[in-house]
């Protein structure tokens, strides 16, 4: 069974059609990349998969591990293992990352009828993951994203992914704003979750992250559809030529 299967998906935002007939399938263990010009609808696709209400589905179907994903509330999707690393993570004053993650983790445990983790066990789990990303100890106690730099916010998204261990991770420009060392750590984090039970959808503009995670497929989203798919060679071609040469295919 595919982890994610999108069939003929049409989505409008504020009555404006953004996605018109997206087809995509991720098999267990796969990492796919989605590239495409600014405003082509990559984030819209990511938000739709996470259940954002503004994204209106006008046609099509989405299955996640065989479940009708569109029938689930955002929190149900999350508890079932869908994670979105946001392009623009929000700030939540007064709420520490540790607190948010403990609630998130235990909500998922309850959903799966697994025992909740107590404060001490969770602190250890969290500390171990933060260590992998080279984050200082006080990081977890700071309010979520408040005053974080662009790159720090992205690292915080990846930390959350590592703690919540999703089956489907959708990472929307997780690489933007990262310095070179952070990029390497983030790539390691993504590779750490590469296993036969999971799949990852990476939205990016640059091949530098893709070089480190070796995606199975690279897709180009343009004109509301995936107009071409290939492997790393496609990403390199885009880096050389931009998207102009694809415009004919798109229309």
């Amino acid at each position: 069974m595919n982890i994610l299967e999108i069939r003929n998906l049409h989505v409008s935002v504020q009555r404006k059609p953004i996605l018109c007939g997206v087809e995509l399938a991720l098999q267990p263990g796969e990492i796919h990349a989605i590239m495409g010009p600014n405003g082509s609808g990559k984030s819209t696709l990511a938000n739709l998969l996470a259940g954002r209400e503004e994204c209106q589905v006008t046609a099509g179907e989405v299955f996640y591990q065989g479940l009708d994903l569109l029938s689930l509330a955002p929190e149900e999707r999350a508890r079932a293992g869908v994670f979105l690393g946001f392009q623009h993570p929000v700030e939540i004053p007064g709420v520490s990352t540790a607190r948010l993650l403990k609630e998130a983790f235990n909500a998922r445990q309850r959903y799966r009828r697994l025992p909740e983790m107590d404060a001490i066990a969770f602190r250890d789990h969290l500390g171990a993951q933060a260590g992998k990303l080279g984050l200082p100890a006080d990081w977890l106690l700071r309010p979520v994203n408040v005053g974080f730099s662009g790159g720090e916010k992205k690292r915080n998204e990846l930390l959350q992914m590592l703690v919540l261990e999703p089956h489907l991770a959708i990472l929307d420009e997780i690489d933007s704003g990262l310095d070179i060392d952070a990029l390497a750590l983030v790539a390691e984090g993504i590779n750490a979750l590469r296993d036969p039970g999971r799949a990852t959808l990476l939205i990016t503009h640059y091949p530098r992250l893709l070089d480190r995670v070796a995606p199975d497929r690279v897709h180009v989203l343009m004109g509301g559809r995936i107009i071409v798919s290939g492997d790393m060679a496609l990403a390199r071609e885009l880096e050389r030529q931009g998207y102009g040469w694809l415009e004919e295919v798109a229309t």
Partner: protein
Amino acid sequence: MNNDRSQVMNTLARSYQQGFVTPIASDTLAQGLDEAVIRSISAKKQEPEFMLEWRLAAYRRWLGMTEPHWSSVRYPPIDYQAISYYSSPFFGNPGAVALEDVDPALLATYEKLGIPLDERLSLAGVAVDAVFDSVSVATTHQKKLAELGILFCSMSEAIREHGGLVRRYLGSVVPPGDNFFAALNAAVFSDGTFCYIPPGVRCPMELSTYFRINAARTGQFERTLIIADEYSQVRYLEGCSAPQRDRHQLHAAVVELIALEGAEIDYSTVQNWYPGDAEGRGGIYNFVTKRGECRGDGSRISWTQVETGSAITWKYPSVILRGNGSSGRFHSVALTNHHQQADTGTKMIHIGANTRSTILSKGISAGQGHNAYRGLVKVLAGATGARNHTQCDSLLLGGACSAHTYPYIEVKNRSARVEHEATTSRIGEDQLFYCRQRGLGSEEAVSLIVNGFCQEVLRELPMEFSVEARKLLAVSLEGSVG
């Protein structure tokens, strides 16, 4: 019949968990108020003559006063003759009842509320005075405190046993004629807590009072007096709850704090009176006068309050900064949901030189809640070098609620520095979605964000209280997201 009805209401509004009624016989005065009622309250409490005179003088002043209506809260007229002014679960002299003789139903009530009155079971480090309707039921850890010279007892006992201190300090911060409700309280107050901390003593445990209204159609008029003598320190906690009833009930308390030279008083309240149902039926009218005076140099008084209950909350815990270099703080979280109304804030009166005050107010409105911050910062001519910082933040959930800020600033000394900042924000869709994407339900997400919004105030509370306050905020927000 009455019982059936309250059972139905209990099931309807499950979320108010303290809404049960204790079925217990009570010695309750007939409804109505006149001099005979006041004489009878004073007699039941076996008060000395000076107290009766004090009450009667207050009553006569009250007769000449009119109910104030300058606040932003709205309610139908209160019929002061339709209230019973005294209700006690004890018959005869309440002062003579030993804990062993207290009706087990009463003790069970407090246990159900999480406040065991048996010292062996009680929270370590917290002494409790338990007030049930008009009387104090029990006061724990009195002996241990007495060894340090600390007086911690019910107001009734203080009037009988420590008349000198009571005479000297009662009404010295909130005089009987201060305002309409303070005058009413002075006339009919029934019980409350009295604390005296002797010079140089740091109170080794937190002192607390738990107020419980049980009887129907009664008012609760408690009176609390805390005196911190020179260079002493005390932390005091106040909690409260009431059964769910479909009629409004009046709670008009007066709290006076006195800090002498170098003394420090921290007073925390978690106010959880029954707020009424989702349609605005029932609930407590909480019209309270709370005021502290930093009488001595270098003294400090802090008010921290979490106001989640009551149909209407109307209170302004204030500090009179008389001593030079004294400081006052007010930290408040006020949450209104459904049809609740709150008009709350503080007054900081700078009299002494180099006095400091800090105000941090967090208002949360949900449903059709109405939430107003009203604060006065007054710097008198002699208060050279006075400083105030005020921060008022409002958070709105949904479109039908409202938040208002009414800051009043009067400065008569040019060296004073007074700062006021205010923000109003709506809970962000983006924040909610972010939390839900991580797996939190809508209500959990709202509660987490609201908790974060109040964090700076909640962390001022003692540990057990802040856990309790977080839970209360979550419960009070139920039904606030559609």
